[in-house]
């Protein structure tokens, strides 16, 4: 059976953002959502672009250009969509985190929340 891609923490954030934004996932909205999800650290727009490129090369997301939009000076938006390998990789990552969380002593879990 083929192994799903192993994701880094930032990749998990980006994929989660793309998944939750659904039809509205493009550079700015993904950047904003990633900022919300990782409230403890600042996220730059450049880091989002680079990670999206890498995820696209891995076949975890796909992208397409929209029609030009007047509010952006007639520029197109590059929208992103999670592909099934991306969804599988994100699911594996989430389950791994869940298993780690469950493995912690309940006293520690309560202290951390």
């Amino acid at each position, binding site marked *: 059976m*083929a192994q799903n891609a192993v994701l880094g923490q930032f990749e998990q954030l980006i994929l989660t953002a793309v998944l939750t934004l659904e039809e509205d996932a*493009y*550079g*700015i909205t993904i950047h904003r959502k990633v900022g919300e999800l990782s409230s403890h650290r600042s996220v*730059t*727009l*450049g*880091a989002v*672009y*680079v990670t999206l*490129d*890498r995820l696209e*090369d891995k*076949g975890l997301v796909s992208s397409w*250009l929209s029609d030009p*939009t007047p*509010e*952006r*000076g007639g*520029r*197109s*938006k*590059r929208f992103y969509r999670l592909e099934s390998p991306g969804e599988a990789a994100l699911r594996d990552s989430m389950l791994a985190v869940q298993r780690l969380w469950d493995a912690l002593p309940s006293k520690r879990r309560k202290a951390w929340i």
Partner: protein
Amino acid sequence: MDLAKIVSVLLPSEVRESVLGDLAERGYRLSDILNVLPRIWFSSFRRAIALPSVIGLSDDAAFELRYHQFSRESGRAMLLIYLLWASIMTYVDQTILYLLIVLVGMAAWGFFGSRLRSFFNIHPGPRSWRELHIGRLRGQRARAGIWFSMVCIDLFLRTIAVRNGRTWPITAPHVELNLPHLSLNFSISTLLLFALNLLWAYRIHREIRQITTPRS
């Protein structure tokens, strides 16, 4: 000239539209521009040298596409390598001879290249595009390896000659040239050039492995 136009010129063409739009939406913040530009270029460069994902397909049409794509890539890579070599030699020997050689070579290739290509271009026939592509990759890898070995031997011989203070074994024992004629610089710069060639060969080698290794 306004900021949008300057940024537009500085962005790689494949992402220009979407990134400019995003930057416009955020009001062209200088911090965004300074952060995005180097990262976008880094990503673009990484994608340019990465192995093409099309090879993952078993469809022979994908190999036909990759076969022609590789022809263009290798042409560009060789051109860049020779231009770099000519530039180094121009600097080292203070002569534009090498640059002229490359320019004449390029002109000749531009004039006769298409005729040569059409003469040697063989339709796959019974061979698949996959086999043709692998054959061409192996040919390029072997050629790069041979060139690199030759330059290594040349540098080795020149080093011995310089240490001995004689031009033999570069020349025949009865022919003695002045030491400056050995031009060790030439060999070193050529070695640098062919180190790039070897890097190219390594990339080809990876592609061959990617194609020929059975996928699980």
